[in-house]
């Protein structure tokens, strides 16, 4: 290859990098499912429309006022019940986890229900009980809420919306800008279970597997990390929509650092691996509802990992990589085969490949 063509290629690559680093503009004509998938389109919607409108700088699932963390969340899962949980449980754990990721001990939440005309009362009863049960388990109180009913067809059975508050734990300040080169990246257990369980529960694939959603409160895990690492715990993110890959991409962009992930060290279960293989999906992009990604200082990584593994649901926590200074905003993967590649943000909804 001639020097000239290398220059051209370098220039083109620079253009791509610049485009990536720029704050995206929201120019889409209509909302598509991609805007809700947690990938690039979601980011464009948030950074290009919401953040500038509300004057928010660093984006997180929970905001902090004084020492109180506040979060809001919406739940539209289909089907309402799936192996390992249901929308009610998800609503509590999802809210609690957003607070926990801000380093806040969850205290209370409100619950708003949007119900479709004709919804079976037993379904409603069951989900209300699921909310109550999950709240007890997570140690939070449901203190209020609202109920609305819409015409048949205007909603799909039941949507839930929550607001949660918690007290920020003083032992650590958690934020993307506290991530520094050298930090170790920890995930709290096998990835991709929730999203895979939901995909299979929808029954679109004729695949049966004994797989359960991992929905759970992550506060016990966060408390263990705070106890073990204190101020050396730098940042947390729950790897929900878009999976670990999207969480890492978002944080690396915010931190202006790079993450290097060793694919072979990422914990997965054989069922998730097999389902992903069949469906042509990368488990790194599949949603979790009870897994977090933690960034800790290297000297404390061993202790943090040990503390985490003592928590129920985190027994298979692992260090999957580390943070580097270059190239900023990027997530690189050392494949289990020994090659390297970029693990980019998800574009569009996760569409399966056909051959």
């Amino acid at each position: 290859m001639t020097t000239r063509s290398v220059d051209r290629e370098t220039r083109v690559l620079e253009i791509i990098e610049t485009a990536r680093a720029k704050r995206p503009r929201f120019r889409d004509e209509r909302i598509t499912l991609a805007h809700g998938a947690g990938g690039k389109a979601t980011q464009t919607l948030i950074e290009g429309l919401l953040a500038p409108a509300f004057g928010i700088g660093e984006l997180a699932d929970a905001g902090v006022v004084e020492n109180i963390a506040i979060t809001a969340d919406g739940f539209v899962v289909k089907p309402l019940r799936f192996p390992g949980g249901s929308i009610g449980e998800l609503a509590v754990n999802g809210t609690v986890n957003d607070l926990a990721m801000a380093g806040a001990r969850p205290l209370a939440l409100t619950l708003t229900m949007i119900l479709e005309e004709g919804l079976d009362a037993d379904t409603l009863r069951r989900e209300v009980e699921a909310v109550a049960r999950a709240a007890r388990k997570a140690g939070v109180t449901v203190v209020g809420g609202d109920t609305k009913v819409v015409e048949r067809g205007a909603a799909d059975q039941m949507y839930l919306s929550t607001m949660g508050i918690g007290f920020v734990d003083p032992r650590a300040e958690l934020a993307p800008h506290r991530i520094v080169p050298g930090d170790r990246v920890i995930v709290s257990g096998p990835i991709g279970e929730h999203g895979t369980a939901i995909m299979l529960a929808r029954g679109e694939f004729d695949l049966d597997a004994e797989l359960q959603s991992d929905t759970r409160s992550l506060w016990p895990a966060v408390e263990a990390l705070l106890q073990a690492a204190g101020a050396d715990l730098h940042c947390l993110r729950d790897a929900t929509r878009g999976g670990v890959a999207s969480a890492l991409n978002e944080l690396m962009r915010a931190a202006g650092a790079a993450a290097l992930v060793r694919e072979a060290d990422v914990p997965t279960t054989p069922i998730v691996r097999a389902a992903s293989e069949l469906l042509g999906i990368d488990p790194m992009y599949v949603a979790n509802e009870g897994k977090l990604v933690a960034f800790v200082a290297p000297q404390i990584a061993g202790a943090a990992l040990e503390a985490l593994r003592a928590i129920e649901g985190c027994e298979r926590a692992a260090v999957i990589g580390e943070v580097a200074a270059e190239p900023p905003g990027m997530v690189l993967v050392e494949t289990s085969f020994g090659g390297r590649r970029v693990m980019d943000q998800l574009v569009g909804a996760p569409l399966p490949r056909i051959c």
Partner: protein
Amino acid sequence: MRFVDEFRDAELGRVLAGEILAALQPGRHYKVMEVCGGHTHSIYKYGIDGLLPESVELVHGPGCPVCVIPMGRVDDGIAIARKEGVIFTCFGDMLRVPGSEHTLLDAKAQGADVRMVYSPLDALRIARSNPDREVVFFAIGFETTAPSTALTLQRARAESLRNFSVVCNHVTIVPPLRALLESPDLRLDGFIGPGHVCTVVGARPFHFIPADYRRPVVISGFEPLDLLQSVLMILRQLNEGRCEVENQYTRVVPYEGNLRALEVMAEVFELRPHFEWRGLGFISGSALRLSDAYADLDAERRFEVPGVRVADPKACQCGEVLKGVIKPWQCKVFGTACTPEHAIGTCMVSPEGACAAYYNFGRFAREKEAV
């Protein structure tokens, strides 16, 4: 996973990479085309580019079935999807392919009932459970996916399902390869043959490549070890002055292909006189349509479609990329006007497309090479 992990063994990969290095003749540059988009995807997914020496260059070929669908066909699909009472089904990666104005995903957001399926049989199931709706399957793919469409049509016929039909965009691999080999600006030393297509058609249809064009072909599997071994087999043929069709993927590809599948295809399909390929233009005898016996299940005959030919965007150089004449980054609009979020050409739409793969994964390989 058994039968998969064995072919992703990093240790064996290093051994093969070493053998490839040892097989290189000094000063010789090897340009090898992987025909199939599935191979392109594996190459980037496992970082295989980075494991090969610099003098072995992989060129991404025309074998991504999504990438070759021209805009006019997408427009036809959208027109059907928008008709009253239609449930339009297709594979997931077809949803984001741009037509002249919209994608199927846009049509869905605007109210068309567009559903993603994993198999044409899923579309058939939707037809069964929605007897008052017209269910249309937008069939794409090479010989790999054509048999499943054919079987689905046979089943629809057997069940006398009247509300099911197919838009057939199935294409065949040999005519575009021949067109490619006829191209005067093409400089390729050998081909990694499309393993999945060969499970159906066998190895025989590829003999014209060594016979007429003096280039070696190695039919390859899709795991990283398969690909490295295939590259090594091509290098050995070149070094030894041999030129033949070899089968690396013997665990799946029988020499004669799948006769039952070929029979089913012969009953349900017939060759189109010509078909337009995005970037490559019209190629004779390169695609399939439903045979007259299945005319009543042909969506193109059941629905009125615009059927307008839409020229490829001027700035788009998908054709040259598909032919391996230029690299993705050499295209005038690559990375600027044409990105995975706003794709102009189909090479950018499918993650298997050469441009999307390069956009997502290629930068790092470049940086590494530069060091």
